[in-house]
């Protein structure tokens, strides 16, 4: 019986283990009574029951990050919405994952991300597999109502395993977490603060030739075009073209 240690362990296993008891937990999601194993998060319990909650920062099996906030849900009795990826389920919880309040909030969040995102989808190498685009389409978000500065960073293409374009970064921190989960010295960390915060390599230098140890863990989970593999024209794309309705 021990509470999780935030500083060292980044593995999902063990988080909320202090809550684990023998009995299954019964809760109500979107009006349906379900039961789930104790120690699960709301997101995990919802997914086990076939309910999809959007998220841009969650990585299965690793510690929740909680940065993107897209997975927020309504829990009866809670003053604010709660992040479903990091909140453990509790007996008798009544949850709404797609109420009008939740949807309106998620839309604003996506609009906020798009407000400072470059309008480069037409020529973005990951446009067809971009999770941000997919979620924006699902939530029927078009041009954002809000305006914010765009981030302009030069594309880092020195490394032959990975191309990094920080102007497309949505600061989900998946790459930071994924890199930390691999053996060896992590490449990425966070620097600066507020709107200027940024995932940095080293002391905020461009990715160099020797940077990457070729596990590709971060590239595969990057939800936007910020991290990608170098691709020559004519080479096969990662997925088929994305069709967005409407």
């Amino acid at each position, binding site marked *: 019986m021990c509470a999780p240690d935030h*500083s060292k362990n980044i593995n999902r296993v063990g988080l909320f283990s202090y809550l684990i008891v023998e009995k299954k937990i019964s809760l109500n999601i979107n009006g349906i009574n379900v039961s789930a194993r104790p120690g699960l998060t709301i997101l995990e319990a919802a997914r086990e029951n076939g309910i999809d909650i959007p998220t841009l920062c969650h990585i299965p099996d690793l510690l929740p990050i909680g940065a993107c906030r897209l997975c927020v849900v309504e829990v009866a009795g809670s003053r604010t919405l709660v992040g479903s990826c990091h909140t453990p389920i509790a007996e008798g919880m009544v949850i709404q994952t797609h109420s009008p309040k939740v949807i*309106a909030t998620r839309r*604003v969040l996506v609009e*906020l991300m798009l407000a400072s995102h470059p309008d480069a989808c037409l020529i973005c190498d990951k446009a067809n597999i971009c999770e941000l685009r997919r979620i924006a389409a699902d939530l029927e978000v078009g041009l954002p109502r809000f305006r914010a500065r765009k981030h302009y960073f030069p594309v880092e293409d020195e490394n032959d395993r990975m191309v990094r374009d920080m102007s497309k970064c949505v600061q989900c921190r998946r790459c930071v977490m994924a890199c930390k989960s691999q053996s060896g010295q992590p490449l990425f960390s966070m620097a600066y603060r507020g*709107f200027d915060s940024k995932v940095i390599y080293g002391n905020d230098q461009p990715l160099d030739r020797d940077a990457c140890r070729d596990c590709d863990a971060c590239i595969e989970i990057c939800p936007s075009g910020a991290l990608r593999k170098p691709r020559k024209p004519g080479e096969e794309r990662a997925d088929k073209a994305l069709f967005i309705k409407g």
Partner: protein
Amino acid sequence: MPQQRVVLKNCEVIDPERIESYLAKDGFKALAKARQEMTPEQITNEIKASGLRGRGGAGFPCGIKWEGARTAPGDIKYVICNADEGEVGTFKDRYILEKDPFTLVEGILIAGHAIGAKQGYIYLRAEYHHLLQHLQSTIDQVTQRGFLNGFKLEIREGAGAYICGEESALMDSIEGKRGEARYRPPFPTTSGLWGKPTIINNVETLMNIPPIILNGAAWFSQMGTERSKGTKVFSVSGDVEKPGVYEMALGSPLRELVEDLAGAKNIKMVQIGGATGRVLPAEKLDTPLAFEAVLGAGAVTVYNRSRDVIDIVHRTMEFLAEESCGKCTPCRQGTEVMAEVLAKFAKNEGSLKELQNLADLSSAMMLASMCGLGQAAPNAVMDSLQYFRGEYEKRVAS
């Protein structure tokens, strides 16, 4: 209602450099009583019965927090005193640290005894560096007199970040990390500093502990209102004749504090609780100062009729955008967007459509942000839109 000095009773009375003058004023008698006559359970029950709520702004019941940490499994536990006092317009903790650091240390030691902690930290904001020597000398004197009794009390200095006054970011900072909000649960009482059960209390909260232990919960709970017991120390600044630190029973009307005590005239609005606090217009001056109405950390900034509301709200938002830790989307992006919209209004280039956008954005930030900063960042915008909408409409581009 005049001032009522409970927390500040020793300020300007004792010599803050000499422990002897504190001992002459019943110093460390509460600690002796707590250690010799009371079990940890009795102490937390006493604090619970007193109705003491956190003075750092959130108003969480102190006794419940202590009980959580006391009953949490684990041999290693920590007490943290939050002396980051970062909220804009607060300076009460500085006054307390300057004038009566001994009561604070006594409060920390009682807290340590109550939850079973052997180690405590005072997190001192970087801007209070000049108090470091003074505070260390206090701890040294207490140590020499043998009051620590195996407890280890150290000072940790911040590095100037507003967010590090937020309890979870503060713990990250003590751990040597970048100060960022953590998601809860797990709460600090089960998994706080280095993952161990931890209580974090504001300076003023801990100042209330020795008098409660000495005089009893019943004595304490007769002061204040039904849901806000005791007194509160206010930092009054802005357009007033006598800015400074005032202590009043909770539930006292705002008007008595700003007009009668501090001598404010021609009030246009008052901001209570600093940058993330509420804004009240002059008509609302009879609002009681209590957790059930308005309070925060007790920063009271008065603006007279010569001040421009949009200018104040814009600068407040610029500050919050600068100080957001950047971890979660609504706060990082939302404060930036709000600062840009308000800058337009400040330049008479606003639009009515953007007023609706501000409302939608505020609601998302309040609902989805991870910590109190993002959740409370839109307060000044929403309140000023409610009470001073005309001033916004005047700034719409023609």
